[in-house]
C-alpha cells in the first residue's frame, strides 16, 4: 500500500492551566491509509476532540504541543508548516464537521455564503458560480428546496438540516480527509442514522479518508474500517473494527461495549455504566490510567504503565493492558451467563 495519508507519531497536546499542565492528549500514534475510515471512540474528556483540533490546527493560544510530536499529512508535517502553508491545507486538504450544528454555523451569514466562501478563498470561485455550487452541494447532502435554503439563515433550519449544511460546508473544498467530531451527538435520535449514512455515502463516493469521532461504539460498527479507543488522552486499544469487536482485549473497551443499550436484553434492565470518573490529567496515575476503575486490576496495574501489545492472531490489533481479556474464554463466559 502507498504511504499513509495521515500519520500521527507521539502526538501530545498540553494545556496550561492555573492548576498545572493538563495532558489532554498524551503520546498518540496512529496511521490512516487513504480512503479508509477510522472510528475514534472514547468517553467525554478522553481527548478525542482535542486530538481533532490538534490535527486541524484549531487549538487555543494556551495549548502547547510538546517537541517530538509529528502529524504527517500527505507527506507534510503539519506542526512545522508556517501559518499560511497550514491554512492552505484546511479546506482542500482536511475538512471538519463539529459536534453541535446549533453553534457551528454563523447565525448572521447566509447559508450559501457559508458553503461557498471556502471555495472563493482557495480556488477563486466567483460569487455566482459559488452560489450554484452551493445549491448543488445542498442538493447532494439532502436538503429540500436548496435554491430557497441557500439564501436563508441557519436559524430557519432544523438541527438535522443544519448538520447537513455543515457537511456541505466541509465537502465544498473537496477535502482528502474529513474529520467528523461527534457529528450526531447533539441531534435527535431520529435523524442520527440519516446523518451517519450521508457521511458514509459521501466518504465512499468521493474516496475520502475519514475520522469519525464518537463516544458510541455502536456508531462505529459497520461504518469504520478501523477503530481506536481513547482513554485519558491516550489510545488504549486499536485494530480493525472486526477484530476489535470480535476479540476485545482491553477491559475499558469491553466496559464501553457493555454500556450500549441492546434490544436483546430484558426491558427496564439497569444499564451497565463504568463506575468512577476518568483520571485527573494534571497528575495522571503512574500505572494504567484505567486501573482505578478497572474490575480486573492487579498490583502491577497501579505502578507500571502497560506497554502496547499485539493480539496473537492479528498483529494490527494492539492494546495496552497488563491483564487483557482472553477473547476465546470470554466467549464461553458470556454464553454461560446467558444460559443461567
Amino acid at each position: 500500500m502507498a504511504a499513509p495519508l495521515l500519520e500521527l507519531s507521539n502526538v501530545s497536546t498540553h494545556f496550561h492551566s492555573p492548576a498545572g499542565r493538563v495532558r489532554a492528549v498524551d503520546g498518540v500514534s496512529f496511521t490512516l491509509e487513504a480512503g479508509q475510515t477510522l472510528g475514534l471512540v472514547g468517553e467525554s474528556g478522553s481527548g478525542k476532540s482535542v486530538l481533532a483540533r490538534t490535527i486541524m490546527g484549531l487549538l487555543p493560544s494556551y495549548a502547547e504541543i510538546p517537541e517530538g510530536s509529528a502529524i504527517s499529512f500527505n507527506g507534510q508535517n503539519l506542526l512545522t508548516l508556517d501559518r499560511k502553508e497550514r491554512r492552505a491545507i484546511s479546506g482542500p486538504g482536511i475538512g471538519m464537521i463539529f459536534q453541535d450544528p446549533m453553534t457551528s454555523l454563523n447565525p448572521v451569514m447566509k447559508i450559501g455564503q457559508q458553503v461557498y466562501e471556502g471555495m472563493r478563498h482557495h480556488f477563486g470561485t466567483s460569487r455566482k458560480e459559488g452560489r450554484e455550487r452551493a445549491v448543488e452541494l445542498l442538493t447532494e447532502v439532502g436538503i429540500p428546496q436548496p435554491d430557497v435554503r441557500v439564501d436563508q439563515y441557519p436559524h430557519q433550519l432544523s438541527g438535522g438540516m443544519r448538520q447537513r449544511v455543515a457537511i456541505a460546508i466541509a465537502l465544498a473544498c473537496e477535502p482528502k480527509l474529513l474529520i467528523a467530531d461527534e457529528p450526531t451527538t447533539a441531534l435527535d435520535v431520529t435523524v442520527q442514522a440519516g446523518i451517519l449514512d450521508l457521511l458514509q455515502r459521501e466518504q465512499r463516493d468521493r474516496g475520502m479518508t475519514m475520522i469519525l469521532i464518537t463516544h458510541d461504539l455502536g456508531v462505529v460498527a459497520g461504518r469504520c474500517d478501523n477503530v481506536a479507543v481513547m482513554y485519558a488522552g491516550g489510545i488504549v486499544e486499536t485494530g480493525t473494527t472486526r477484530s476489535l469487536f470480535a476479540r476485545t482485549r482491553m477491559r475499558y473497551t469491553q466496559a464501553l461495549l457493555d454500556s450500549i443499550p441492546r434490544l436483546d436484553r430484558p426491558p427496564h434492565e439497569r444499564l451497565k455504566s463504568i463506575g468512577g470518573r476518568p483520571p485527573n490529567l494534571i497528575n495522571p496515575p503512574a500505572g494504567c490510567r484505567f486501573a482505578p476503575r478497572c474490575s480486573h486490576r492487579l498490583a502491577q496495574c497501579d505502578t507500571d504503565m502497560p506497554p502496547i501489545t499485539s493480539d496473537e492472531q492479528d498483529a494490527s490489533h494492539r492494546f495496552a493492558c497488563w491483564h487483557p481479556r482472553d477473547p476465546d474464554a470470554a466467549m464461553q463466559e458470556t454464553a454461560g451467563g446467558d444460559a443461567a
Partner: protein
Amino acid sequence: MRYVLKRVRRLIVVVFAVTLFTFLLVNVLPGDVAYDIAGQDASEEEVQAIRADLGLDRPVMIRYVEWLGDFVQGDWGRSFRTDEPVAEAIWSRFPVSLELMVVAQVFALILAVPFGIFAAYRAGRTVDRTIATAGFMSLSIPSFMAAILLILVVSLNLGWLPTSEYEPLSEGLWANLRAFILPALAIALSEWVVLMRVLRADLIGVLQQDYISLARAKGLPVWHVILRHALKPASFSMITILGLQIGTLIGGSIIIESIFALPGVGRLLINAIYARDFIVVQGVVVFIAFAYVLVNFIVDLLYAVLDPRIRTERSDG
C-alpha cells in the same frame, strides 16, 4: 407595525413625563424671564406688569396644561425674550449639533473599531494592556480639558486649525467641516473608549464560538474570519452604546458648543436657562427627548439588519 405602535406609545409617555418634570424644575429656579426683559433698572411694578403680560403670574400647573395644549396642536410657543418661534429656533440650530455629533461619532468609531479588534485578538497580551491604559487615560480627561488642550496644541502651537470660527455649509464643505474637527475630537476622545471596551469584550466571546472555529477550519485568513464572521455578531453592545451616545449628543453638547462657539442646540438651551426663558427650555427638552427615543428606535431596527434571527421574531410577532 404593532412594534412601531408600541414604540410611539412609549414615546408619548416619555415626552409627557419629561416635560412635566422640566416645567416644575425650571419653576423652582430663583428668578424668571421678566427680570431679564425689564432690565436692571426696572422697578418692581414694571417687572410685575411684564410677568402678567406673559402670563407668568398664574399657577405652574395651569401654565403647564396650557403649554401642553398648544404643543399638542403643533404650537411650540415663542421665546419670551426674542419672540422667535421656538420650533424655528431649534430647527435652525439643529444642523450644527447634528454635524458635531456625526463627526464626533465617526472619530470615535475610527478609534474604537480597529483598537477594539486588536485588543480582542491579542487579549491579555501587551498590545491589549497598552490599548486599555491609553483608553483609560483618554477617558479620564474631561471633554472640556481635552478641548482646551486641543486648542492649545493644534490651534495655537501648531496653527493647523482655527480655534473657533464657525462657517455655515454655504461657505464650502472644508471651511465648514474644519470648525468641527477639534470639538468633535474633544468629544470622541472620551466616547471611543467605552465603544472600544464593549466591542473588545463581545469580540472575545464571539471568537470562542464554534462558528469561528468552523470559519478557521475552512482555511480562511485571520483578518477574514474577524471582519466577515466575528465583527457583525460582536457589535450589538457597541451599537447599543453608540445609540445612547448619539441620543445624548443629538441635543447638542453644551460644554463643547460653548467652548468652540458653535451655534448649536446645546448653546440655545444653556442661554435659555440663564435667561429663564422657560418656553425655549421646554421646547429644547421635548426635542431632545424625541431625538433620544427616535435614535434608540433606529438602533433597534439596526439590530434586525445585523441579526436575521430578530427579523424573524418581529415578523412572527
